[in-house]
């Protein structure tokens, strides 16, 4: 047990070291893929707190991403407020929205497919509302103006080259994984899992299921909104479809599902395995086959649901458990 703990500690240290030194030896394109991996890992970790731990699958998480992206970008482009502060205003608004959505849905006992449908409808309604808000550019969206100084403007979350963005999202991802692994080991985490596994039993044991579900919704919403701000700063352009739409909603949850729902590392593993393959296929086939990378995502999603519904991490744990039981059986077979 002790060696296993030490091994995983060493593994973690090596991965972190590799992640933090990547920009020193990689080119811009590799760093770009690194940014995308980290961004989707971060979003999946955020979604996983409500969708994985608490088992409430939101299919409209882009609602929170959009609130984050639009709030900080509006404050930045129209009022000059740095996104470093604007992201927290967006986070607060998203947290409030997460509370509202959670309260409405869970207060009325919505579960499973019904919850999924309401979240889709809310995100989709947001697309049409923002489409008609001329103050934030309507369907045209908002452009994040480049402040245009040599070396970028780190205080405005604008960097010269991709390295700066890489470190921002790397720190966000490390913190989110840390938060996610910390939460799940606490009383709150156990309460969330009990809600997922058997809500009636959890209620009978005195868990305030409504409260913990709403809390999970708020935490997940705030984290997702912070990611939305990063998205706007990195891609420097947002419109209602690409931050509130169905596309981002699906991409937020995709990697958590493929990596392993409700596990700490699943969302990260999912993004790490899939995003580079998808990006490479996009750059190779993108010219002639637009949509090739989403095609890949869809195919992997269907295959995962058919053959390994617990995702990559779930499969790994199953294999390890089988190996362990086999080796312990070998020991016992002599005695029996």
């Amino acid at each position, binding site marked *: 047990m002790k060696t296993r703990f030490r091994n995983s500690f060493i593994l973690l240290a090596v991965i972190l070291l590799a992640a933090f030194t990547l920009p020193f030896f990689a080119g811009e394109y590799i760093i770009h893929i690194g940014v995308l991996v980290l961004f989707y890992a971060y979003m999946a970790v955020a979604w996983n707190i409500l969708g994985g731990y608490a088992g409430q699958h939101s*299919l409209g998480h882009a609602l929170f991403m959009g609130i984050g992206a639009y709030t900080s970008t509006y404050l930045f482009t129209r009022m000059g407020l740095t996104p470093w502060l604007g992201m927290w205003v967006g986070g607060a608004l998203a947290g409030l929205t997460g509370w509202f959505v959670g309260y409405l*849905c869970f207060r009325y006992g919505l579960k499973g497919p019904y919850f999924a449908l309401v979240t889709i409808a809310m995100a989709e309604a947001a697309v049409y509302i923002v489409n*008609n808000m001329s103050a934030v550019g309507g369907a045209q969206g908002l452009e994040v103006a480049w402040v245009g100084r040599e070396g970028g403007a780190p205080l405005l979350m604008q960097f010269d080259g991709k390295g700066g963005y890489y470190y921002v999202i790397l720190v966000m991802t490390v913190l989110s994984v840390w938060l996610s692994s910390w939460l799940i080991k606490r009383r709150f985490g156990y309460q969330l899992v009990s809600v997922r596994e058997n809500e009636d039993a959890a209620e009978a044991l005195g868990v305030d299921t409504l409260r913990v579900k709403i809390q999970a919704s708020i935490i997940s919403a705030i984290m997702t909104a912070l990611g939305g701000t990063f998205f706007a700063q990195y891609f420097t352009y947002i419109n209602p479809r690409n931050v509130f739409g169905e596309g981002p909603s699906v991409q937020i949850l995709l990697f958590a599902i493929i990596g392993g729902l409700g596990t700490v590392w699943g969302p990260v593993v999912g993004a790490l395995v899939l995003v580079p393959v998808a990006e490479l296929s996009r750059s190779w086939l993108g010219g002639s086959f*637009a949509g090739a990378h989403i095609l890949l*995502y869809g195919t*992997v999603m269907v295959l995962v*649901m058919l053959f390994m*519904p617990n995702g990559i991490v779930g499969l790994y744990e199953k294999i390890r458990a089988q190996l362990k039981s086999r080796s312990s059986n070998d020991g016992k077979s002599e005695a029996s």
Partner: protein
Amino acid sequence: MVFSFELLGQALVTGILIGGIFALISVGLSLIWGVMRIINFAHGEFLMLAMYIAYFLVAKGGWDPYLTILVTAPALFLIGVLIFQSTIRPILKDPPMNQIMLTVGLSLILQNLALVFFKADVLTANTAYTRLNFFLGGVVVRGSQLIAFLGSGLAAYLLYWFLQKTETGRAIRAASINRDAATLVGINVRNTYLLAFGIGSASLGVAASLMIPFYYTSPTVGLFFGLIAYVVVVLGGLGNFPGALVAGLIIGLTESIGASLLPGSLARVLTFSIFIIVLLLRPQGIFGGKQK
């Protein structure tokens, strides 16, 4: 905003005609949902595929749009059966969320296959029916929409008759009420599911052929109609066939009256608000009984 009775009359006529199409699109989803308790999140994408088939027959093959039903309905039946056998059947007993994720994956595949093969272009078929208009006072009745409305009504009636009066239809309904009891009385539930999925998909073929004279197709056209179908099915009550028809009309009217009263595309927000309120307060639908 100027508001007149003519405008209201126009909104009413358009709303009812479009509502008929919404109803036909939704009965397939309702049938599948009612029989096997699966929400097919690729429902809109099935419709999109059918619209491409209809479009190419009309635009490239010179077919009469309504004749394409002979191809779209069987083709969609076949596609539905193939997809059911290969992907839905193995996960029938899985948790509902896995089923949802699988069909979301299917919708991504279909949408992006369309993008790869047909590009992102918006395609509009120009048919003899496209500019066929009648005037009722100051209100324009588009001939193609009227035909689509009547065709939808007929198709929905035939489907209803099939489910109510034929032995196979009764087997499908029995399987939807109680899977185990249906098995006990000798119904082959497996085949029933397959048939229901095929028929639910085929109805989209009919809808696509009826729509192609007045509606464009594009890889993402299924997104909107898929959402509309969920709204209509939830509003009418899961698996409630006549409920879906009435709900289709209600949503059609909401969209068209909303569009004449509200600026821009805000009418759609109205549709989603109705959906959210119904899901929260009456998830069994406005016509459903007590049980959820």
